[in-house]
């Protein structure tokens, strides 16, 4: 029971935060809404029994990446954005696209049996050890390739910053 209550409270927070992110005019307010979304997602992960992923979500996304976002916004002292009317293409293509996506989602969900049972904590890949077993045994190659990819991104960032310095 408490699972359902927590789920719906934090799902509401996540959706509300996402809408607020778009509705706010000031970049800081938008960034803070994004933090709310990420925090609520962390709680949802925890309800799924994925405590490690939840903690990493808070530490990496809400704690590190979003701090950098806020930092940059503060550093540039970005003011409130100006609203334009928005492009017509977005309205003409966006609304049907969104409806189609929604319909597809509902269709898939109704066609498949969705597991409705409560997840026992620790029964699935929740603890760090279970995740590590998966990462370093069956998924070792994708994991290592991803880390090389991240390294390339870091090197690219360094290169871009270096050009500015000259």
């Amino acid at each position, binding site marked *: 029971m408490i699972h359902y209550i927590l789920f719906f409270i934090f799902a509401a927070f996540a959706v509300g935060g996402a809408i607020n992110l778009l509705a706010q005019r000031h970049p800081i307010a938008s960034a803070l809404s994004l933090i709310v979304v990420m925090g609520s997602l962390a709680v949802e992960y925890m309800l799924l029994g994925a405590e490690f992923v939840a*903690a990493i979500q808070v530490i990496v996304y809400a704690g*590190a990446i979003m*701090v950098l976002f806020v930092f940059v916004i*503060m550093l540039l002292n970005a003011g409130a954005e100006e609203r334009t009317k928005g492009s017509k293409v977005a309205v003409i293509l966006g609304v049907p696209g969104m409806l189609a996506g929604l319909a597809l989602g509902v269709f898939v969900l109704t066609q498949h049996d969705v597991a409705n049972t409560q997840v026992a*904590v620790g029964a699935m890949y929740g603890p760090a050890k279970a995740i590590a077993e998966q990462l370093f045994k069956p998924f070792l190659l994708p994991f290592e390739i991803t880390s090389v990819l991240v390294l390339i991104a870091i090197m690219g960032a360094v290169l871009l910053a270096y050009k500015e310095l000259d």
Partner: protein
Amino acid sequence: MARDGNTTLLGVKTFVILSVIKIAIALAVLLTLVAYTVLFERKLVGRIQNRWGPSRVGPFGLLQPLADGMKFFFKEDITPPYVNKPLYLTAPMLSLTLALTSIAVIPIGGWVTVDGIRTPLQITDVNIGLLIILGITSMGVYGIALAGWSSNSKYSLLGSLRASAQMISYEVALGLSLIGVLILSGSFSLRDIVTSQSGAWWGVIPKWNLFKGQFVAFFIYLCAAYAETNRVPFDLPEAETELVAGYHTEYSSMKFAMFFMAEYANMVTVACLASLLFLGGWNGPLFGPQILQYFLPVFWFALRVFFFIFLYVWVRGTLPRFRYDQLMGFTWKVLLPLSLANIIVTSLVVALRS
């Protein structure tokens, strides 16, 4: 996730009552500790600088924290014009709440049996305890960042920019320095980490992680912890010679006091964590009757925490402040490579041994 596992065993009602009692005690102790750490710091820094420190209120100035608290309450609470009001009011609350929350997962002693109810001396023992503390610390940046930004003052903004950059940078070194400890103990639970450090070699040298070869990690952790709590020699965010008071320049009365309390609560948390991770937590010689056996571990633990707080004050009384580029260079060019090397060496040793 909670590892007590005795929720069903005890019944929900007992569990709730027990938790409320624990939370009340922990909060009262923590707040008292925060208040008296301030006094301790003023006294000790006074002695280091060859003066008395506070000595007027009560015997040896022992009631000074009480007087300070009263003063904060009765000061005029100014909200400057042109501040971003919602964020200006939220920032100190955020800082203090997050600083006080992390005490929830910190264990202070072994198990205690009272009236047939067996319970750990800890509010809750979760198997990702260390990660929760790291998460809470990383969220603590927002309190400072938003305080500076919402104040709409150049000094505050500069202070909070410095704080955010510094805290993100040192968090990397802090997190990496803990990995050696995690490899040795094989668990994120703070209770398990302490248990893995019990015992001694040849009955003399305790099996603390510090003596298991984590000296480098300990040094990195200490530096990073000082930077994370914005203490001398890394107190650039509130460098009074350059920035008036940094991120809390525009705050007065209890709102300022909340930042102040948050800083000292963070100091206590960091000191607790250092004792748990590197100095064997509450492990120590046990003797005497049962009641003494319960409280001796807490005493040993308190002794270690006191040592770290003493070290904090000592460093503050001794070292000058870094320059900002030195501060950033120190973490990225010294601490980060050192912590990576420590991880490689530690994992190599553990792998060769197994």
